[in-house]
């Protein structure tokens, strides 16, 4: 249970970083990281199929989509990158102190994570439920994916042509 809470805290920190970071690419990678941590939580909560979906679709497919779209945009100039790095270092200068304080607090509170993974449930049940009881939601997910494909075609196709 304690480990779950620890993972949740990491999840929140990763999501805050994803939202706060100023680089699109890092935000994309941050999103993938959040998905991976969420997948770990799902594994620990006995939902292996949901975790696999989360890993494959959110951490895998969507990250690839984001990174490929971001690669189509214009990068910063060298001077801008240097300025960004500088401002980033000033923004995060207190981070090591915060990490040390959190570490000390956890040490004194005798935080001992339980690292054993739970045994996954039989997967057949979940698949059975998905197909027999949530068929309509599955079709809905497929339609949303289709919609995403059209979004890329409609909104980015011309930009790609120009880039060439």
């Amino acid at each position, binding site marked *: 249970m304690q480990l779950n809470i620890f993972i949740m805290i990491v999840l929140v920190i990763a999501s805050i970083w994803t939202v706060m970071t100023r680089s699109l690419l890092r935000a994309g990678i941050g999103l993938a990281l959040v998905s991976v941590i969420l997948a770990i939580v799902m594994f620990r909560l006995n939902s292996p199929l949901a975790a696999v979906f989360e890993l494959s679709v959110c951490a895998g497919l969507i990250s690839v989509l984001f990174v490929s779209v971001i690669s189509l945009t214009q990068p910063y100039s060298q001077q801008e990158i240097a300025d960004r790095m500088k401002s980033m270092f000033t923004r995060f200068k207190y981070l090591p102190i915060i990490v040390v304080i959190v570490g000390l607090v956890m040490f004194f509170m005798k935080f001992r994570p339980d690292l054993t993974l739970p045994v996954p449930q039989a997967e057949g049940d979940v698949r059975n439920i998905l197909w027999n009881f949530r068929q*309509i939601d599955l079709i*809905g997910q497929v339609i949303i994916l289709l919609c995403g494909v059209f*979004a890329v075609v*409609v909104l980015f196709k*011309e930009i790609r042509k120009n880039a060439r």
Partner: protein
Amino acid sequence: MYSALVLAPFFCVLLLNMFFRGVMKKLAFGLALLLSLTQIVFAIFPQTYNWAKFTYIFSNFFKFDFVADNISRVLLLCIGIVLSVTVILARGMIKEEERRFNFINLLLIVLAGLNGVVLVKDIFSLYVFLEIAGVGSFILIAFDKDMLAFEGAFKYIALSAVASIMILISIALLLLFSGGTSFSQINVALKYSAYGPLVMVAMGAFLCGIFIKSGLMPFHGWLPDAYSAAPAPVSVLLAGVVTKTVGVYALIRIAISVFGLYQPVQNALMLIGAFSIIFAALAALGQSDFKRMLSFSSISQVGYIILGFGCGTTLGIAGALFHLFNHAIFKSLLFVNAATVESQTGTRDMEKLGGLTARMPVTGLTSVLASLSTAGIPPLAGFWSKLIIIIALWLSGNYIYAVIAVLGSVLTLAYFLSLQRNVFFGKLREGFSSIKEGPLYFTIPAVLLAVITVGVGIAFPYILNTFILPVSNIFGG
């Protein structure tokens, strides 16, 4: 049988994109129009035996638990009518075949989403279909890829995401509480619960989410930008059915089938409805952009629907549903008029327009009809629906809300008269002497929608007995 309404658009998208794309690009318009017209016929004559013959393939393979009562049929009809208008507008306004093809594909996806929202009876499936309709709409708003369109779409995405999170939290709480996600299961669990704090949080979160999606004041931040920046066919679709289905219908369905018409919920609905009516009408008075004024007018009219529904009597619910239908028709008509004016004159700024009726008689006449109907002038359709709502409020003892509804109607008349005076009446402005009436793809939908508005108003006694009063019989539907 109802599963076909969701699956047919989905399979059409697959069909259009899989084989012979060259031929399919030419067929896309016809296919979309056929689907929407079929939906209109189906919504009017749902009992006909032959439907089952066409749709048995779907029902053999897919076991969806869909239901349609009288409210769903009203919505299916609205979706069918507004979608056909949108498809016709898109056919004329989007000149490039490739772009039009993509547009129609997205329209079909939104159609599947909207029909799904109308037909599901499971709260999680409802969420899934809300998202389908929402995501399709974001892309359609940004379709022209100009700065304002992106801004409108972004605001819609951002606020819609907040709404989605609230709805998801509510669904999670309700699942914890009742052990299931079907409407009936949650409803039964709530009946035996005496509305504890957990349930109140779930209800509040759900209602706030839905208020954002329906763009009611003070949750309306995204709506004027999204409506006015979207391409003309998309504005018609958004104002006509998208916000009504994902917002108002979802609210009505959840309030009736899940939460029950519980007094605090009713009070919240009436308060938000009355607030939207007055403040959106005041905001509309101050607008100089044609489409922006219509957007604020939409918020105000949706307020009437919510107010009528919130009073909770069968007459109030019937009036709300009738106004929902009427508003879908006349607001689509006004957005078609706005599109015609913009395409012929190149501007939406009402300060720069004037005297257009002389050059555009069909647009001028239809817009007068739609404006008068919105303001509730007899014998047009809008008058009857507003009258039913006001009578229902009065009979249920909500006298103040009834007075607010009447005042709102006066304000509506004021801003629409100002719109008519600035755009269509008076002396023709310089530089507009060579302007002609819009092409057929503008005038045909406008005339059809105006005929529905006038026809429904004149045939009201017949419609009252055959459609409106049965609509209120929702608890047995």
